[in-house]
């Protein structure tokens, strides 16, 4: 495959690593969740680019079109997006409650407080 053909995969890998790095490196819980979102989104793009067919259109039967993109990966990823939203919402709720209990959302500070208990 030519380099432009692989372009979506490079985007996926770069986004994935950025997201993964943010999850590991940042001590701020909100930034961790943003990183997690980027990580998940890169996988959504992987699926979506997989379903793309060159010259294909939306899979709706109509006169004048004979090539359609594969709708299945797109449908699958709709489910995964819903999962992602649920995860983000739950994480945001947890962060609010952690802020209520500790008065901070910095990981180091939370660990410091718990060890001193």
């Amino acid at each position, binding site marked *: 495959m030519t380099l432009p053909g692989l372009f979506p995969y490079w985007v996926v890998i770069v986004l994935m690593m950025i997201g993964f790095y943010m999850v590991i490196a940042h001590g701020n819980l909100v930034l961790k969740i943003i990183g997690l979102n980027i990580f998940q989104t890169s996988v959504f793009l992987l699926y979506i680019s997989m379903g793309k067919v060159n010259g294909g259109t939306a899979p709706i039967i109509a006169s004048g079109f004979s090539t359609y993109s594969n709708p299945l990966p797109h449908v699958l990823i709709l489910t995964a997006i819903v*999962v992602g939203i649920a995860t983000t919402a739950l994480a945001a709720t947890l962060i609010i409650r952690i802020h209520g209990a500790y008065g901070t959302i910095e990981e180091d500070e939370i660990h410091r407080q718990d060890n001193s208990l």
Partner: protein
Amino acid sequence: MIAAHFPVLQVVLPLAAAPVCVLLRREVLAWWITLATTWAVLVNAVLLLDRVTTLGPITYALGGWAAPLGIVYRIDALNGAVLLLVSAIAAVLLPYARMSVLREIGAERAALFYAALLLCMTGLMGMAATGDAFNVFVFLEISSLSTYALVAMGQDRRALTAAFQYLIMGTLGGTFILIGIGFMYAATGTLNMADLAARLPLAENQRAVQTAFAFFIVGISLKLALFPLHLWLPNAYTYAPSVVTVFLAATATKVAVYVMLRFTFDVFGVHQVFSNLTVERVFPFLAGLGVILASVSALFQINAKRSFAYSSVGQIGYIVLGIALLSPLGLTAGLLHLFNHALAKGALFMALGCLYYRLGSVSLPALAGAARQMPLTAAAFVVSGLSLIGVPLTAGFISKWYLLRATLEQDQWLLALIIVAGSLLALGYVWRVVEQLYLRPAPTDREAVRDAPWSMLAPTWTLVVANLYFGIDSRLTVGLAGQAMRALLEGAP
């Protein structure tokens, strides 16, 4: 005929009951609905397993759409047994849950708690029942998301950070599984497990298949807490409400083990996984290391719940060890230990939950002298502890014995030594609690406590008696494990 719909009912019932709990809001109503649901699901699972073991595997097409276009559930002896395990633990746990939840969660949030528990059960049952790879991911996330919420309901504020940590690692694991499934689809164009099994070996791009397997196995290893991917587990088990700890320890990691088995043996196939990718060299190493290191960590914990959370990581090591031996005997041993450990750990955490109910803490100093005031709870702890160690006449002995035989059959002396060493370490960390319960004097400033309420003791002793029963009469468990093992080795799902 209702019997035709057994495979789907066990997922639909808890799924439908969960929103009803939320709408009713009343604690007592929600509890009754959850109780009725878990018992209905248990009856369903028993009937289903009976049909499967006598008539052979059942395939159920959802909405009447046949595979490979539609989603199918496929039940054989292996996942029939896993479904029975999950529903049996839930059914025994629910009578116990009433008092424990009132104490630890409170009446006003109890309905939401039961709803989340039902959703968690839905996810676990779905993961076990489905014959569709993407469906596994969806149910995995249903169970994971509800688990994060359940863990966060613990009384200690550290439950929140434990849930958050679990959410981060669990989502990474889930996303890895999603990537794996994506590569499987890219290589074959199908998501049905039986179809995948037929097409994966013929796929043009074997590199994509190997990548799929790598992502999938790392993701699922995180979910089943294989050493060193277990870091989320100790905190989550320690700070979760007692009922949640029992449920998770006895079922969640076990279902993840089942998913790993299904994909390595059926979907990817033994040849691909073990000859091309040499997983059989990595897994015993990690499993053995996990048994030793986690058991040693368990020896140094102040909190008894945390100590047994580390023990769970070690016991997962045993299960994986048996599986990774790749012999029929090893696989039988791994499956046996999966069931027996669920019984032992379920009973242990139930006993700890009883202690927590009366004493308000399960840190070792708080347990001092409790045996005189709570004799039945302490005795339940001792018997289930013996089963965890693997003393003869308990269920734990049967599976340790099969594991030892499986290692010696292949002259794996080092692994046999690790199994024995792990048992000795288990003796150590069980003894630390027993010593506190029986030999230390009770602190003078503690008010006299009574034994746990009957509604909690009866389920605990039900599991304890099950530990003894399956330790003496192992025909049922060994027979089932053997049948499940043959279902796995016979190939396509």
